[in-house]
């Protein structure tokens, strides 16, 4: 039988991806870190999330990795992709070479394989920097009254910084944070910049200086700009860091 025209159109050759995953289970005393290689057929518009899910379903059910939203909003799937931090769900395999090496984000407590406890780090940072609205005389606020209005431009600015999903990529991309465990990183300093903008927060620059005016805060930053270059949400981190540094330096004088 003669092939129909449709059958003569050559199909795009799909690649076989070689995915090397750094595996280790710290809860198992017999486990030691090692690379395990998986091979899968690449599909159209395949993300690393899809690839990892397929590996777990068809090849190794013990593979640990975190996902919730698969849309770049929850911040769970940060990992090192060929040495660079990024979100697995937002990374298309077609943008990567045939061999893809995955490792857990450095700088965080390892739960197992690609799963790290970013939440613990973020919680510690949040408690240390007190990243919530501070308001004097809070008992006197009438919670039945209509909230004070905010200019749309200011609300936009706040929202821009609030977009941080605490995925930990900026910490993994930061040489300073990798060297100094107590450095609060771009995730922390971005939070300070966010609450500094917020008119509902009555803290002054002197208060913020107490929190980040030292080597573990804004003056510890060496401007390596890994945070700026690897933030999956494209937050304006270099801008915020330079701005906060100027404000805190003025406060310190």
């Amino acid at each position, binding site marked *: 039988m003669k092939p129909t025209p449709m059958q003569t159109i050559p199909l795009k050759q799909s690649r076989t991806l070689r995915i090397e995953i750094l595996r280790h289970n710290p809860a198992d005393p017999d486990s030691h870190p090692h690379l395990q290689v998986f091979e899968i057929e690449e599909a159209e518009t395949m993300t690393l999330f899809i690839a990892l899910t397929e590996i777990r379903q068809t090849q190794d059910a013990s593979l640990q990795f975190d996902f919730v939203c698969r849309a770049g909003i929850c911040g769970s799937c940060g990992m090192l992709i060929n040495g660079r931090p990024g979100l697995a769900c937002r990374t298309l395999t077609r943008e990567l070479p045939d061999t893809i090496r995955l490792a857990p984000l*450095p700088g965080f407590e390892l739960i197992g394989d690609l799963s790290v406890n970013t939440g613990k780090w973020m919680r510690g940072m949040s408690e240390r920097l007190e990243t919530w609205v501070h308001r004097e005389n809070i008992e006197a606020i009438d919670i039945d009254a209509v909230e004070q209005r905010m200019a749309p431009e200011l609300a936009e600015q706040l929202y821009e910084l609030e977009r941080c999903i605490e995925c930990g990529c900026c910490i993994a991309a930061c*040489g300073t944070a990798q*060297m100094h465990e107590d450095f609060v990183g771009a995730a922390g300093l971005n939070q300070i910049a966010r609450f500094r903008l917020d008119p509902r927060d009555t803290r002054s620059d002197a208060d913020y200086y107490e929190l980040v005016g030292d080597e573990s805060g804004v003056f510890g930053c060496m401007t390596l*700009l890994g945070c700026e270059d690897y933030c999956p949400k494209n937050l304006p981190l270099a801008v915020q860091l330079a701005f906060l540094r100027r404000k805190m330096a003025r406060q310190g004088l």
Partner: protein
Amino acid sequence: MQGLSGLLLVLFVWAHMFFESSILLGKDAMLWVTHMFEGVHVFGEPYPQLVSAAALVVFLLLALHAGLALRRLPARAREYRAIHTHLRSIHHADTTVWYVQVVTGFALFFLASAHLIQVMLQPDAIGPYASSDRIWSGRFWILYALLLITVHVHAGAGFYRLVMKWGPLTAANAAALRRRTRTLAIFIVGFFLLLGGASLATYMKIGYEHRALVGERYVPGSHADLNGGE
């Protein structure tokens, strides 16, 4: 403070390049610049101590800058391992630039100190012949060639990083400012390497031609046979 001391040193080094390259305009131009720093144009006679004093100020600034920079370096084995693992893994341009600054900075601690101590101890040994003799017959060109490359790479990277650190970044201009500053820094480094390289080659040439008369000082208008009738 580290940034401020670095900025002052960068400005000094860049100005230094223009003064030392006066040799490209001829021996008389270089002699005029030498006389300027020895106070001849003010006091009527040379006071080389002024040069020593200036070198001392730069040396102290360098010591301060180096001392402050030391805080940034990995001090413990864990930190050292962490930053090297990170560098090998991420292949990130700006992190690598910082590392280049660490390496050149370490080299400069010795190279720049050697240069400054020489100037402090022999402030009168600067001049069209005196400098050239030191560079050629005294083999100081080895020191100066290494110093030229390391100091300009270090200063250019420092300039870029300072702008990114404190600069007037806004959300709208950040990417463009970064790109332009990077281009400008590369251009500046290239320019000073060419200018410094040409000056060093000129001093080497004069020193080579003057090798038989080491120690003799340049007097304007003399030795027309040696300096090609200038």
